């Protein structure tokens, strides 16, 4: 029982990380039809700069971590918005060019990060409580899982509120369905493209800082690793569906944890098999709209 609880909550924590990356990917694809392979770079640069600021101000404390999170969110939002404004904006409706450019950004940024921060992981200091455990139903759960779950819950709630309660949220929801019709109602939908990139970048930025808490280090490849699973989550959840991304994040991460424990470390393989199964049985994903 205690093992199941541990795997479940660890899966939820990892799922929270996946969701922070996948939420932006899903919104960006849903509204703009852009498969943004550069999304992992937003996460990595945020993680590095968040760590740099946090450790200089107050390393290993809650203040330092909070500051890292704020820096991560701001850096993620700004870098993503600039990427949309300066590069992606010229390439809408040109899917091959989009893929090539965003893959190029991803590869070049990893090289850049390695040049600045080196190729080895840099281990980070965390507040003491996050290195401790809490006992639940006999399972000793690392406390950082609770932080991740809480943050992802807040981000999910925040995005849902934004989408449901604001005019830009309304434009984005309509644009995900039919952006040409939004334009035909007299709305400059491209303004919301930048906003969605910024929101996705902010979530990824927070994800970067929290990933450094979860893994205990920052590295130039942090974003690349998480991006692969975030893409899997986005496809399984249904491209463009925030709810689908949230559900699939939890399902994938929990499945991965259980397979790693009970099936001899085959978590990644099982996730890929699950992706293939979903694509065969329900190509539009769990919550995606029919083509």
């Amino acid at each position, binding site marked *: 029982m205690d093992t199941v609880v541990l795997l479940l909550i660890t899966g939820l924590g990892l799922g929270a990380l996946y969701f922070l990356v996948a939420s932006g990917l899903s919104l960006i694809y849903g509204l703009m039809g852009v498969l943004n392979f550069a999304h992992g770079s937003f996460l990595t640069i945020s993680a590095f700069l968040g760590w740099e600021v946090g450790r200089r101000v107050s390393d290993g404390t809650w203040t330092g971590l909070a500051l890292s999170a704020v820096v991560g969110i701001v850096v993620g939002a700004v870098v993503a918005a600039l990427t949309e404004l300066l590069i992606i904006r010229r390439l809408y409706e040109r899917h091959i060019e989009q893929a090539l450019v965003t893959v190029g950004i991803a590869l070049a940024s990893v090289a850049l990060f390695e040049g600045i921060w080196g190729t080895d992981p840099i281990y980070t200091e965390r507040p003491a409580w996050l290195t401790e455990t809490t006992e639940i139903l006999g399972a000793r759960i690392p406390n950082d899982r609770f932080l991740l779950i809480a943050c992802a819950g807040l981000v999910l709630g925040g995005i849902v509120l934004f989408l449901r309660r604001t005019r830009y949220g309304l434009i984005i929801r309509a644009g995900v369905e039919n952006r040409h019709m939004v*334009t035909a*109602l007299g709305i400059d939908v491209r303004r919301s493209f930048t906003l969605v990139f910024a929101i996705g970048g902010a979530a990824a930025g927070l994800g970067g800082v929290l990933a450094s808490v979860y893994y205990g280090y920052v590295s130039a490849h942090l974003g690349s690793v998480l991006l692969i699973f975030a893409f899997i989550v986005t496809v399984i959840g249904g491209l463009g569906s925030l709810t689908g991304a949230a559900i699939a994040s939890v399902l994938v991460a929990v499945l991965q944890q259980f397979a790693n424990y009970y099936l001899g470390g085959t978590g990644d393989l099982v996730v890929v098999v699950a992706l293939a199964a979903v694509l065969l049985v329900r190509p539009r994903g769990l919550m995606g709209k029919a083509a």
Partner: protein
Amino acid sequence: MTAASDASARPAPGAGPILRVAGLTGRITGQTVIEDVSFEVPATGVTALLGRNGVGKTSTIRSILGLIERTGSVELGGIRIDAMPTHRIVQFGVGYVPEDREVFAGLTVAENLRLAERDAAPRREFIARLFPDLVARRDQRAGTLSGGQQQMVSLARALVNENRLLLVDEPTKGLAPRIVDEVAAALGEAARTVPILLVEQNLHVIRALADRVVVLSGGRVVFAGAASELLDDEERVQRLLGVHDASEAA
């Protein structure tokens, strides 16, 4: 240009055509779908854009709005709009009711309408009077409405703002006869306040609403004149539109 300055640029009634299209050529993925189309829409009443299936009626509407690649001149109230992006053309006072309604299925009726509101004082009471059923269904998702109700939403989105011109594309397509009458009545009501360029297949509706007609064939204008001039000539209707005027026979 803001909505307020748009309104100040509104032409006086009878001051000439509200829409002047000249040499309009439209392309979809490089293929020419309309060629050298020229016609005018008066500043009052309903002008019907007619033609057999596939002659380019919808493409003409979409070209005017800049929804497809086009060349040529489009003037609204004497001002060239063909270099503007679609959202600016709509902000300039062009309401659009697309073929197949294109309501946002995942949004409620109220959200569909709120999204379309761009005037400082949207005409909510006018919409409520014209489509009382929509008021009762304001919290219902548009995707769960019947075809007729979705058409009401689509019309209401265009009518909630004060426009200089409405472009209405096949509003009665696929609707039951009773709903067709309701849609035609709503359009008739709307036409009292705004000129309409209407694409329509139903001759009964055209006869009831249209003052003028423009007929396309092979992507070009082959007839433009008073509606009665075309509709009273059975042979011409048959030749240009390929349909028999059932309302005439009745």
